[in-house]
C-alpha cells in the first residue's frame, strides 16, 4: 500500500536583509507563541498570510463544541 503521509520541509532559504519577513513562513498554529500580538484579531489580517490564518484557526477551540473542530461541528 502506498503511504499517505509525508515529511514536509520546515526550512526556508535565508535572504539577506529580509529577517523581519521570516515570520511569514512560521506555521499559523505556532506563530502566536512567538509573536503574540500578530494573532490579535485587530492585527491578524495585517500580519498573517492566508495560509497562516487557516492554520491558526484550525486549532482554535470552538465555543460551540469545545473542540478544535475548524468549524466542522455545524456541518
Amino acid at each position, binding site marked *: 500500500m502506498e503511504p499517505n503521509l509525508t515529511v*514536509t*520541509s*520546515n*526550512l*526556508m532559504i535565508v535572504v539577506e536583509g529580509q529577517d523581519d519577513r*521570516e*515570520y511569514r513562513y512560521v506555521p499559523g498554529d505556532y506563530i502566536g507563541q512567538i509573536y503574540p500580538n500578530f494573532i490579535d484579531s485587530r492585527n491578524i489580517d495585517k500580519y498573517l498570510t492566508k495560509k497562516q490564518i487557516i492554520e491558526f484557526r484550525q486549532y482554535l477551540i470552538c465555543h460551540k463544541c469545545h473542540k478544535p473542530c475548524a468549524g466542522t461541528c455545524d456541518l
Partner: protein
Amino acid sequence: MNGIGIDFGTTNSVVAICEGRTGRTRGLTDPDSNLPHPSVVWFRGDGVEVGRRAKHQIQGFAEVPGNFFVRSVKRELGKGKRYGIFGEEKAASDVAAEIFRFLKNRAKRDHKVDVEAAVVTVPVHFDGRARRELRKAAADAGVHIKTFIHEPFAAVVGYCKNARQDITSFDGSRILVFDWGGGTLDVTLVQIQGGLLAEVGTGALDDIAGDRFDARVGGHVVSRFVETHGFRTELVTPQGGTRARLWEECERGKIVLSSRLQTKVQVAQFFRRGGRDLDLDESMDRSGFEKLIRQDVDAAFHIVDKVLNEARVSEPEVTRVLLIGGSSRIPVVRQEMEKRFGARLVEVANADTIIAEGAAIVAQEDLCPFLQRPVQIRLADETLYTVYEAGTLAIPDGSQKNLTLFCTDNRDGVAHLVIAERLRPGDPSSAITKEIVDIGVSAKLPAPYEHERVYVTLAIDQDLVLEVKAHSATQRKVATAEIHDLAFGLRAR
C-alpha cells in the same frame, strides 16, 4: 591515447580498450574461451588464483582444507563483510583487489595492454560506501579509477559507438537497457539528443538476479532430496564446501536451461548419513525453473514499467531495447521482452563486453558525467529551490554549494532538509524526494526575527555521490547523507 574501461561484475569481470588512433574498441577477454573472467577468487595455502581456473576448481577443492573460495564479492562491497581466510581477516575490498590485480596482469600478459587508469562501471544502486571500497580495491591493485559510470549507461555508449561510430546518428532515440546479471537488475532509459546521451529514467533491483535464481534452484533440489530420502529438512543444510559445490551446480543447471528443456543437478557425496555418502541427483525442467523465478521476473518487469512511467515514455516510444547480462538470456525473460517490444529488441553481439567497451570509450573521449536533472530543496512554503541546475558537470572541483536556511517550525527540535530531483523540465510536480536529512535544532521558543539558522553544504564527490552535511547554529552535531542514484548524462569536458 587509449582509453581503458572495466566492468567489475558480480559473476564475471572484463577490461576493454578503446584505441585512440583508430577509435576501435575490444574486450580483453580470456584468449582461450573468448569470455570474460569469472569473478571467483581461490585462496590457496601457496597463493591466490582468480578467474576461470578458480571457478573450475570449486567442485574439486571447496571441501579440501587449505582452500577458500570467494564468489560474488561485489555484492559484499560497502556492507562491512569480512572473510576469515587461513586465520587472517580480509575485507571485501581486499578480495576485490585480487580481481583487479588479476585483470590488470592478464591484460598485460594476454593483450600487451597496461591498465593504470580506467573508467569503472557500477550498478545504479551502488552506494557511496560500496564505491569507495571499489575505488580502494582498484587502487590497491595499482588501478586509478578516473570516474564511475552506471553500467547500463556504459552499455548504450558501447552500443551506439560500435553500431555507427557517430552518436549523433542516433539523435531522437530512446534506448532502454535491461541489464540483469548475477547480482543486480539495472534498468535505464537513455535519450540521445544533440549528440548528448542522458539517463532519463533509472531503476534497480538489488539482490534479485542470477545468484538469487541459483539459490532458488538450490532450495528446490535440496527439498526434493529431503523428500526422497525422508529426512527432516533442518538436518540437510549444506555448509562450506558442499554449499559451494551445490551453488556451482545450480548455476550450471540454470544456464543449461536457457538452451535445453531439461537438465540435472548433481552433487556427489552431498550428504552423509549412517556412514554412507548420498549423492544429490535431481532433474529439473525449464517450466519448473520458470515457476521458481516467476515472482522475480514479475518484479523485474515492474521496474521496467516504473522507469517508463517516471520518464513519461510509453512502450511504443522506446526506439531500441538492449538485453545485457546472463539473466536476460533466460527464455521467459526474453519472451516477455519480445511481447512488449517486438523487433526493437536488439541482439547485442558483444553483450559480454559491451559495458566495459562503453566505459573504455568514455575514458578515451574523456567524457564527463553531468547532472541530467536539477537537484532541488523543498522549502517550507512548498516551493523548490534549485541547488544544481541540469547540465552541471559532476566534478568534485567547483561542485560545492553552501546554503544558509532558517527553521520555520522548531517545536520538535528537528529541521527536515528534503532533497529532491525534478524528473521533467518545467514540471515542479514531477520532483521526487531523494533524501530527508534530519538536523537537530533548539526546541526553545525563538526570539522574533531570530529563527534558528541551518548551514548546509552539498558537493558531488569523485564517486558521483552527492554528499550532504548540515548542522544548526545551536546544535553543532553534523547530520550527513549521501545520494548515489542521481541521473547523469555524458558530454565532453
